[in-house]
């Protein structure tokens, strides 16, 4: 039970731009609430620069009382990598969709993970290109119907659904933080984001948090079906938890890295 006097919105949410522009039932708002609270609780409001991609994340361009830059589709990470290098005292948060992170911006994700850029990356995985009307994304589940896979995603044709944190963990440096949360596990997700901010601020490392999220508009689902798709299908395909960077495991003499459940 929440205490009655707890404010409904984090202070860092900008009242002037509320109600926000996401569809009813969208997961973006939940992720941004976790992020807002995490930034506040760690006392980082003064020095955080938030950057959003193009995708439904672009709707967050005036969401926070934080200095904010809207970038291009897939290019949020290099903008912040370039910024952070010259202003290391700032805390930078890259907010993007699964299409931006894993398709058009994949090379930037690989390069930033490889360089261990001290950026906190939050990827909202809703298994589709939402903003453009629900086309297939790298994360689209096998057999999932989208506008460009009207008969369901065929693995033989499009490959299996991409798992981002696993990819990042396989190339991330020791000290980097990698996790997958879900808007259905809010407290855990917020905890991951907090750890991800700490990894940047205290450790000077990359942090990568994927948030499994909902898109009832493009999934064409009602509330119950939306939640079922998230909790039954997505949670099963994309295991929640923290992922140890493979470089660290390798140095410790380990082999493959199963997700460290938290």
């Amino acid at each position, binding site marked *: 039970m929440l205490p009655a006097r707890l404010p409904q919105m984090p*202070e*860092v949410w*900008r009242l002037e731009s509320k109600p926000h522009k996401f569809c009813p039932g969208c997961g973006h708002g939940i992720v941004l609430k976790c992020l807002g609270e995490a930034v506040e609780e760690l006392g980082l*409001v*003064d*020095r955080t*620069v938030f950057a959003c991609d*193009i995708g439904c994340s*672009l709707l967050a*361009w*005036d969401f*926070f*009382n*934080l*200095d*904010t*830059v*809207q*970038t*291009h589709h897939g*290019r949020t990470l*290099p*903008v*912040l*990598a*370039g*910024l*952070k*290098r*010259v*202003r290391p005292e*700032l805390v930078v948060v890259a907010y993007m969709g699964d299409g931006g992170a894993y398709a058009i911006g994949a*090379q*930037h994700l*690989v*390069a930033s993970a490889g360089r261990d850029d001290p950026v906190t990356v939050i990827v909202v995985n809703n298994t589709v290109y939402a903003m453009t009307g629900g086309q297939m994304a790298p994360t689209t589940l096998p057999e999932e119907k989208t506008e460009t896979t009207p008969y369901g995603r065929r693995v033989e044709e499009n490959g299996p659904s991409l798992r981002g944190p696993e990819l990042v963990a396989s190339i991330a440096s020791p000290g980097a933080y990698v996790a997958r949360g879900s808007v259905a596990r809010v407290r855990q997700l917020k905890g991951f984001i907090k750890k991800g901010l700490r990894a940047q601020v205290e450790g000077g490392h990359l942090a990568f948090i994927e948030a499994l999220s909902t898109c009832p508009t493009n999934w064409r689902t009602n509330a119950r079906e939306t939640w079922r798709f998230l909790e039954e299908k997505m949670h099963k395909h994309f295991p929640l938890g923290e992922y140890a960077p493979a470089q660290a495991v390798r140095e410790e003499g380990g082999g493959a890295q199963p997700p460290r459940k938290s």
Partner: protein
Amino acid sequence: METKPIRGEQRAFMTGNEVIAWAALAAGAEVMYGYPITPQSEIMHYWARLAPRYGRRFLQTEDELAAGFTTLGAVLAGEVAFTATAGPGNVLMQEPLSMAEMMRLPAVVIIAQRGGPSTGTVIYSQQEFNLTCYGGNGEGLRIVYSPSHHQELFDYTLKAFHTAWKYRFPTFILGDGYQSKMREPVTLYDPAERGLEVAPSRPLVGVPGTPGRDRPPVHLRNTYNLEEELYEALQETIEAYDRAAPEIAEWEAYRAEDAEYLVVAHGVVARAAREGVRLLRDAGIRAGAFRPITLRPFPQKELREMASRAKTVLVMESSYGQLEREIRAQLYGLTVPLKGYRRPGVGITPEEVVREVQKYATRSAAPDA
């Protein structure tokens, strides 16, 4: 740590790429982000070697998209930053530069033109005129300098940083492979010692104070919901550009005052034009040369004045009509005949200038022409 890379006037004999690296240092550039491509790579090589000595930074990025976008990140943070590229890299660079155009981010980009289309050659061309002046899905709201010798490479690279930050438009140095690789004498200097103005940089995000409490948050966007919203934002940028244009536009003329045959060329081709004009004058032909130093904004008024006095305007370029189309547009309404000499991806010599002008001069000198 040494902070001033150049003290006093330094005579040097070096390649254009090296000149540019020194100019960026002298201009106070803090950071270069770049991706290798011939013929610009040595700008990065020199910068990577020199930068740490003066507390400057370098990062080799994963591609030109990242080179451009990291540069924008540094600019947003308030640092003087630049990148360099060529050919196919210039194509990729247009994406970040269109964001810079929209958001008024003063990034500086050095272009060393190589042959195109596609991978073309690694050698030389003037085929990146269109791309550099009008690339991206926008309106060409950029500043483009086209230097023609090494002293200008130095002078205008220095100036590009100043112009970019003063007017807040992305700014290009449009060089080419010849200029990049050739050695020439040049005088390096510190702009402050010569009393040259260097516009200060300032952070656009991450400014002091708690956003929402002490000050409004900075919210920078490039996406608009409504046609009118975009139109209004763009109108403001266009007006700022048009206001600044007369202060920025630069040109050079050589014996053009009384020229009957006016050769128009930019970059290294303008050197051939100048030498050709000298030879033609020696032969008694009233030739002259006009050279836009800024391709964007274009020095229209001056060109129209000189062109309107000429019998023929001859546009010479190492591309297939890219400059000619621009000149046609700039001279629209004048009756002077306009001819083109198009050598895509190939250099042009003074002898060719003489030969081409003579074609028209001979014709009009013929008794019944």
